């Protein structure tokens, strides 16, 4: 049945397998194809850091005809490529959702070890001979994943052509034989899906309503960061691998040589940040990428960057902590470390994008800000955002400025040049080492305007003011969202304040609450340091109750907001390693409406 324009599509597919089953590749083909067909796609992959043959991989993709902002807590369809991994996720399939699984295991399985024995009565089972079909068509079982994607596409009326395009693109560099055989595996799966009697009620028709898209790109948060870096003209990158930031370095390692950039894998995170600051000192646009444990090691150098006023960018993708914590689970518990983790009053800029497009913008703008305000800039991501895929439309014109440095006046005499000159906006003209007549001292010690060490009270006070004041104009930096309010205007029953990856779920919950007649709005805060206190206060003024959902135990953002504004907020904290569910936020909103006006400061 063809989809009519008015039908709303909102289907979430989860593919679950073991590392080596091609789960992520299958999910990748699905999301690329659906984006090409004009659907909105949000996807999130979870995979283990381990080698092939171990560990669980899940690729989730939410395919919608209308804009949505997060994944759903329940999927409409689960494909099992490995039953032992998929079984715990069967309960995440919604009522009358489908479970697609291998019907011809290669050998006997234990009693209760087949996924079909774990379906709830409300699930719809589709057993398929993935392995047999793959072997019949390609003489190997390796294309089971492609047969599965084909089956899914056939079963849900998805357009085969877009899959063909994606598959040809993906295998373009490989042998024609391989590309043909993968295409044939897809077709065989597709036909099997088409021939299957459908009991489910959802369809994903030929087009998502936006028509066939050529300018929409499916990319992950980390891939968007990389695009942002490249478009901003990154010169140098230094890093040490750590989940979930590693792919930033991997992608840059492929791309930077093509753009005359340099990338070095250092021996640890301390060297990585030291080299980044060193490169920044020489005028290069330099960055590093790490996770919470790496940032912990970088704090000392971050202080040097603040004190010596050197531009540097650090992408920090959070995961479950503290310490080595939960490397493959998401969390938002490094806010305090990112904002406050430094010896002394070493404020820097911290940006936390809320979606994939935001990752691109914040990445590029971070270089501009680092230069313009002569400071380290942390772009705070998390695993859910780093690995989440969205269909984004990148600007056709490069939106990032090439050079934002405040340089010394050309004809100023050497005697006049003060590297740390106290200016009205706090930003001193910055000379690059090697510039004739711009000799100056750079040190981690407190210093005077020329950079000479000094511990005079007057100087320390003036310099402290300077280092903080100069960051405030960042709140008005052009071309980047610092904070933004959505939903109802004016006074509302409940306002939901959020940051980072959780904001997608917040938006969805707010939209649902409004449908229920609750006056509700949501505000995202992208710049965490310096905090846009004015807009946040104005938002709080409008809200009878304020809810702050975040993925940490200590309510780090809620405390930041309460500290900065002196206003009470309701906290909603979860630390399960998974994204917060829309339902949980919505429930809290409903409760707050019931309680409106009765809750005191927590």
């Amino acid at each position, binding site marked *: 049945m063809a989809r009519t324009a008015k039908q709303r599509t909102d289907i979430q597919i989860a593919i679950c397998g073991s590392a080596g089953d091609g789960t992520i590749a299958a999910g990748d083909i699905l999301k690329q194809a659906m984006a090409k067909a004009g659907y909105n796609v949000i996807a999130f992959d979870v995979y283990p850091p381990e080698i092939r043959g171990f560990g669980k991989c899940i690729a989730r993709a939410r395919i919608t005809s209308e804009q949505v902002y997060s994944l759903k807590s329940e999927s409409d369809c689960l494909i099992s490529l490995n039953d032992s991994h998929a079984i715990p996720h069967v309960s995440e399939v919604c009522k009358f959702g489908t479970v697609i699984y291998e019907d011809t295991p290669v050998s006997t*399985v234990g009693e209760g070890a087949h996924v079909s024995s774990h*379906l709830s009565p409300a699930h719809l089972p589709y057993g398929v001979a993935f392995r047999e079909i793959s072997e019949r068509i390609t003489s190997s079982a390796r294309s089971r994943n492609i047969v599965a994607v084909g089956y899914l596409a056939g079963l849900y009326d998805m357009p085969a052509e877009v899959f063909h395009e994606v598959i040809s693109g993906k295998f373009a560099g490989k042998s024609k034989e391989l590309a043909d055989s993968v295409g044939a595996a897809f077709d065989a799966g597709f036909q099997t899906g088409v021939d299957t009697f459908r009991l489910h009620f959802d369809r994903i028709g030929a087009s998502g309503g936006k028509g066939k898209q050529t300018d929409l790109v499916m990319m992950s948060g980390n891939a968007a960061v990389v695009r942002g870096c490249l478009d901003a003209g990154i010169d140098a990158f230094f890093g040490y691998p750590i989940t979930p930031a590693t792919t930033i370095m991997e992608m840059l390692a492929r791309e930077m040589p093509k753009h005359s950039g340099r990338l070095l894998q250092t021996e640890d995170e301390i060297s990585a940040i030291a080299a980044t600051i060193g490169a920044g000192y020489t005028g290069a646009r330099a960055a590093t990428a790490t996770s919470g444990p790496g940032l912990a090691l970088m704090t000392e150098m971050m202080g040097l960057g603040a004190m010596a006023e050197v531009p540097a960018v650090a992408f920090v993708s959070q995961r479950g902590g503290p310490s080595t914590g939960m490397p493959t689970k998401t969390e938002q518990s490094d806010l305090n470390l990112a904002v406050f983790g430094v010896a002394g009053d070493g404020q820097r800029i911290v940006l936390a994008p809320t979606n994939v497009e935001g990752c691109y913008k914040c990445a590029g703008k971070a270089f501009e800000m680092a230069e313009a305000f002569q400071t380290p800039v942390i772009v705070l991501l998390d695993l859910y955002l780093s690995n989440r895929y969205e269909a984004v439309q990148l600007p056709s014109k490069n939106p990032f400025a090439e050079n934002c440095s405040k340089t010394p006046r050309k004809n100023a005499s050497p005697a006049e040049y003060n590297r740390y000159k106290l200016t009205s906006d706090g930003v001193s003209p910055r000379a690059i080492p090697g510039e004739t007549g711009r000799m100056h001292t750079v040190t981690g010690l407190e210093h005077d305007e020329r950079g000479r060490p000094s511990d005079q009270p007057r100087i320390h006070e003036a310099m402290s003011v300077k280092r903080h004041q100069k960051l405030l104009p960042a709140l008005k930096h052009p071309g980047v969202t610092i904070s933004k309010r959505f939903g109802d205007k004016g006074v509302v029953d409940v306002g939901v304040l959020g940051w980072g990856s959780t904001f997608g779920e917040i938006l969805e919950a707010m939209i649902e609450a409004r449908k229920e007649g609750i006056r509700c709005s949501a505000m995202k805060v992208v710049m965490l340091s310096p905090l846009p206190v004015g807009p946040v206060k104005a938002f709080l003024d409008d809200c009878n109750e304020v809810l702050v959902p975040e993925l940490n135990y200590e309510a780090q953002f809620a405390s930041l907001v309460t500290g900065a504004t002196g206003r009470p907020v309701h906290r909603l904290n979860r630390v399960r390693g998974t994204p917060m569910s829309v339902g949980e936020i919505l429930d809290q909103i409903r409760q707050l409406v019931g309680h409106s006006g009765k809750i005191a400061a927590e």
Partner: protein
Amino acid sequence: MANTEHYVVIGNGVAGSEAARHLRQRDSDSRITMVSAGKLLSINRYELPKIFSSSADWRDFLLHPPEYYDEQKISVRRNTWVSHVDPTNKLLMLHHREPLSYSKLLIASGGGRYIPESLNQFKNLIAKFGTYEEAKSVCDALPRRGHMVMLGGDMIGLDLARSLVRNGYKVTVIGEDHLFWPHRVEAEQRQKFVAVLQDMGICVRTDVAITSIQRGDRNRPDRRIILDNNEVIDADVILSFCGLMPSLAFMAGAGVDIERGVLVNPQLRSTDKNIWAAGDVCQIWSPEENQYRFYYGWKNVKKMGRIAAFNMTGADESIDTVQNEKLVTTKSGEIDSPFWQYG
């Protein structure tokens, strides 16, 4: 003492689901697993002809909502075929190579359509009507006022035929051998009942036999039937209603006595002390007739499900092997049969 009984029921038709319901009522702690080849939870098969007169989907045919199974702690393995039974080890082997152990087993796997030997070569051109999926496919294939040809005309088929003619479709029944099955209608009575069918608007052809079935030509109905008098009948859909064949392939080599169905005593126990059978799959010993025989129809099958459950949980009840099985005409001149009494 903890109850470790695991009752496994093969089949979620009337017999199987009725048995599971009573097993739970009589034994609240045991494990109960129903295994069904179909993808759906138990549906009301007797209402399937309604598919032609309403836009209902499969949810409207469910015997119980999904929540019922959770509440009753009855696990339902759907889309799952039993491929072999090993009574020695009390184990079923499922088609996807998973073993399933039981302590007591009920076979309630029903029967599939029977196609007479002479027509078997055309079986791919003959549609099925046993499950919701099959019924829906037939419904989709049949155009408005389309023509359905029925081979045989057993009571299941005639039930469908009467609701099709009521909904404006054309129905032709061909063949004499299985007409009114499982009723045994005497020759002198037969003409009377055929006339009643014709009055109901069903065309009955007992005078001809089928020589071949072909695909229809382009722009013609999908099927062509060539009769032994060279007459050609065009049909949109052909169905076979020539009685049922018990679904028992998985019992081959199990060592349990089988003739056409699983042989059971009036308490529905098979020759294996841990295995019972109920519904269309079993042949029950009739002391009155001194033979094993089938007892069809909703009422019988439902009763069998209950009795099997009772006896599996320690009771000693027997099925009533003497029954009124007469085909009759109603005051309004229509056919009626105890076989059609349902609800």
